[in-house]
C-alpha cells in the first residue's frame, strides 16, 4: 500500500535531481552555440580517433605477439621432438640436448631448461628460471603439444614455452600417448615486440593529435553553417519586432535550418496577413463612420436651411404642432453639430486632419474665443491673459480647444471659471479651472473618451459627447498634451500644453 508519505521522499529526490540537471543545462547554455558545437565535434573526433587507435593497437599487438609465439612454440616443439633421448634420463646427454636446442633459437635467442623429477638442467647460468610459473608447469604436463605463457618479470616481458616429452605405450603406434615426465622449457625475451608495440602507440598518439586539430576546421565550418541561418532568423525576428512585417529570410538548401527559415517565413506571412486584415477591418470601420457622416450631412444641409422657416411659422400653428415643429428644428441643429463632430473625429482617425498654422497673439486669440461665445461676464469668467505671447497655432483648432474646455467647465463645474495663460520652458500652457465639485477619480481616466458619460443615468449632455475627444486630438495635432485633474481647492483643472513655435512655417504670409 502506497501512502502519500511514502511517495514524498522520492518526489523530493526527483525534484532535486531535476534542479541539478537544470543547473547543468544552464551552465551549458552559458557557452555560445558555436563553442558547444565545436566541443561536441572535437569530442566525437577524439572518441573515434581513440577507438580506432585502440582497436588497431590491440589487433596489431596481438598479430605481432602471436606470430612470435607461434614461431617460437612450433620451432621449440620441433627441436624437442628432433633430439633423441633415452630413459632413464642421463644428465650428461640431457645437458647436450639442452645446449643443442638453445643454439637453434628462433625467432629470438632463448634459454632452454629441462626438468625431470628433481633434475634441473639449463642452457643458462642458473639451473632454473624465476619466470617459469607453477601454472605453466602444471599445464605443461596436461598438454602434450606444448603450452605457453607471457610473463612480465622485472619490467621485461618474456615468452615461456613448455613442451613435455612423450612416449607411446605400444610399438604399433595405436596406443595412448603418455608424458615421460621430462619437460623442456624455453624462456625468450619479447623486448623487440614490446618496442614495436610501443612505437605503434606513439604513432597512434602522434596521428590523433593533428587529426583533432584538422577536425577543428570542419567543426568551425559546421558551426558557421548552423550559426549563419540562426543569426539570419535572429536578425529577421528583430526586424519584424520593429514593425517591418514584410521581413523574409532567404531559404537556402533543404536541411532543418532551411525548414526553420521556411517556417519563419510562413509565420511572418501569416502574421502580416492577419495584421493587414485587422488594419483593413479598422480602415473599413473608420470609412464607414466617415461615410455615414457624409451621407447624413446632405439631408441635414437641406433640413438646417429650413429650420428658420419652421421657427418663424411655429407661432401661427396650433400648440401641439408648434411644439413638434420647434422640437424638430432644435434637434436638427444638434444633429448637425453631432455630424460635424463625427466628421472631425473621422478625419483625425484617418490622419486627414490638417494643421493650418499662423503666428498669432495667444492672449488675443483666447479673448476672441470668449467674446465670440459671449463668455464675457466677469462673474462667470476670470482671465489671466498676459499680452505679447506669440505662437504658431491653427487659430480655428485652438479656438475649438479653448471653447470646448471653457464650455465644459461652465456646463459641468461652477463659476467663476478661470482661464490662465502662461509660458514655461518652451511651452505655452493654458489652464482652465472651475469651482465645481471636481471630477470623480474613477471618471478621470475617461474624460477624453468619445461619448463617455460620467453618469449613465444623466443621458445626453448639451454637447455632442465628442467635445473633449476633439479637444485632445486638436492639441495632439499641435504636438501638445492636455491633462485633466482636480485642483487643491476642489474643482476640475484642465491643462493644455503646446510647444511654443514661432517664426518660419509653411503657411506664414
Amino acid at each position: 500500500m502506497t501512502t502519500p508519505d511514502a511517495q514524498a521522499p522520492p518526489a523530493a529526490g526527483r525534484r532535486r535531481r531535476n534542479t541539478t540537471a537544470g543547473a547543468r543545462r544552464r551552465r551549458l547554455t552559458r557557452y555560445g552555440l558555436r563553442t558547444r558545437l565545436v566541443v561536441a565535434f572535437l569530442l566525437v573526433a577524439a572518441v573515434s580517433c581513440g577507438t580506432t587507435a585502440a582497436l588497431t593497437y590491440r589487433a596489431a599487438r596481438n598479430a605481432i605477439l602471436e606470430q612470435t609465439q607461434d614461431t617460437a612454440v612450433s620451432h621449440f616443439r620441433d627441436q624437442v621432438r628432433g633430439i633423441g633421448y633415452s630413459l632413464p634420463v642421463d644428465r650428461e646427454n640431457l645437458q647436450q640436448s639442452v645446449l643443442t636446442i638453445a643454439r637453434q633459437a628462433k625467432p629470438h635467442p632463448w634459454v632452454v631448461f629441462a626438468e625431470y623429477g628433481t633434475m634441473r638442467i639449463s642452457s643458462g647460468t642458473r639451473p632454473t628460471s624465476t619466470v617459469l610459473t607453477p601454472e605453466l608447469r602444471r599445464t605443461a604436463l596436461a598438454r602434450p603439444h606444448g603450452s605457453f605463457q607471457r610473463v612480465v618479470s622485472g619490467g621485461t616481458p618474456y615468452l615461456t614455452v613448455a613442451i613435455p616429452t612423450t612416449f607411446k605405450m605400444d610399438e604399433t603406434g595405436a596406443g595412448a600417448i603418455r608424458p615421460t615426465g621430462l619437460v623442456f622449457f624455453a624462456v625468450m625475451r619479447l623486448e623487440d615486440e614490446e618496442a614495436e608495440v610501443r612505437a605503434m602507440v606513439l604513432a597512434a598518439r602522434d596521428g590523433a593529435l593533428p587529426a583533432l586539430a584538422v577536425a577543428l576546421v570542419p567543426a568551425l565550418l559546421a558551426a558557421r553553417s548552423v550559426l549563419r541561418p540562426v543569426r539570419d532568423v535572429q536578425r529577421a525576428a528583430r526586424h519584424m519586432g520593429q514593425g517591418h512585417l514584410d521581413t523574409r529570410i532567404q531559404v537556402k538548401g533543404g536541411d532543418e535550418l532551411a525548414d526553420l527559415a521556411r517556417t519563419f517565413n510562413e509565420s511572418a506571412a501569416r502574421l502580416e496577413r492577419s495584421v493587414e486584415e485587422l488594419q483593413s477591418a479598422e480602415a473599413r470601420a473608420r470609412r464607414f463612420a466617415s461615410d455615414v457622416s457624409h451621407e447624413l450631412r446632405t439631408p441635414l444641409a437641406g433640413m438646417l436651411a429650413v429650420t428658420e422657416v419652421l421657427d418663424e411659422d411655429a407661432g401661427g400653428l396650433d400648440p401641439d404642432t408648434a411644439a413638434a415643429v420647434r422640437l424638430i428644428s432644435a434637434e436638427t441643429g444638434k444633429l448637425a453639430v453631432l455630424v460635424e463632430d463625427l466628421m472631425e473625429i473621422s478625419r483625425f482617425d484617418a490622419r486627414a486632419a490638417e494643421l493650418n498654422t499662423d503666428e498669432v497673439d495667444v492672449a488675443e486669440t483666447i479673448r476672441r474665443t470668449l467674446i465670440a461665445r459671449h463668455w464675457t461676464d466677469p462673474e462667470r469668467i476670470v482671465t489671466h491673459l498676459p499680452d505679447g505671447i506669440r505662437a504658431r497655432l491653427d487659430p480655428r483648432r485652438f479656438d475649438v480647444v479653448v471653447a470646448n474646455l471653457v464650455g465644459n467647465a461652465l456646463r459641468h463645474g461652477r463659476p467663476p471659471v478661470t482661464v490662465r495663460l502662461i509660458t514655461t520652458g518652451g511651452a505655452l500652457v493654458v489652464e482652465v479651472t472651475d469651482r465645481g465639485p471636481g471630477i470623480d477619480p474613477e471618471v478621470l481616466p475617461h474624460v477624453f473618451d468619445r461619448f463617455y458619460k460620467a453618469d449613465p443615468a444623466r443621458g445626453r449632455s448639451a454637447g455632442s459627447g465628442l467635445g473633449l475627444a476633439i479637444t485632445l486630438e486638436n492639441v495632439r495635432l499641435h504636438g501638445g498634451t492636455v491633462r485633466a485633474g482636480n485642483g487643491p481647492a476642489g474643482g476640475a483643472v484642465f491643462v493644455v500644453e503646446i510647444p511654443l513655435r514661432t517664426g518660419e512655417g509653411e503657411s506664414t504670409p
Partner: protein
Amino acid sequence: MPRVLLIEDDPSVREGVELGLRRRGHEVRTAATGEAGLAALGEFRPDLLLLDLMLPGMNGVQVCRRVREDSQLPIIMLTARGDDFDVVVGLEAGADDYIVKPARTEVIEARIRAVLRRLEAPGSGRPAVEFHGELAIDRTGLTVAKSGERIALAPSELKLLLHLSAAPEQVFSRQQLLEHVWEHSYHGDARLVDACVRRLRHKIEDVPGSPRYIQTLRGFGYRFGPL
C-alpha cells in the same frame, strides 16, 4: 434684394436653401448642374452665384473658372468641411468666399451680404482717385487701373486692395483682414486671405514672385507698399 443663382445637385439642399433665401426676400434661381447654371447665368443676370463644389459632370471649380473668364460676379462656394483640397482649388479658381455645409440660412445670408457689401466710401479730403506707383485706384467708381489699363478684379480682390491701400505701409494680420474684408470670425480660415493675395498679385504686380504692392511680413501679415 440681391438675385442669387444657386447651382446645387442635391435636391433637398437646393430646395432647402432656395426656400430659406426666398423667405428672406431674395430672388433665387436654381440649377442642378454646372452646365444648366452657366446657361441660366446670361438670362437671369444674378448679383451673386452660390456654387456647390461637388457637381456631376462639370464640377464647381470648372464652373468657377468659366465664370471668371469674362465676369467678376461674386461667387460663394458651398463645400463640406474636410474637402480642404477642393476649398483651396476653388479659391485659386477665383471664388470670393466659401460656406461649409450644412449651414443655417442666416449664416448663408450673412455671407451673401458680406460679399456684396461695399467698403465704406472714402472720407472727405481724400481724392476720388489715388495713385500708387503705376496703380490708379478709384474708390468711388470702384475701379483699378494699372498704367492706364483697367484691371478686372473680383469683389474680394477689390475689397482687399482697397482695405490695404487705404492705410499704406500699415501691417494687417491675416485675422484682421479676415474680420474686415470677409467679415469672418477672428478664428476663420486664413487660406482665404492667402489665396486672394495670390490672385491679386497675379493681376497687379509686375513680378508676382517679388511683389511691390502687396508685401508680406513674415509672422505678422500683409501691408500695402512701401513703393
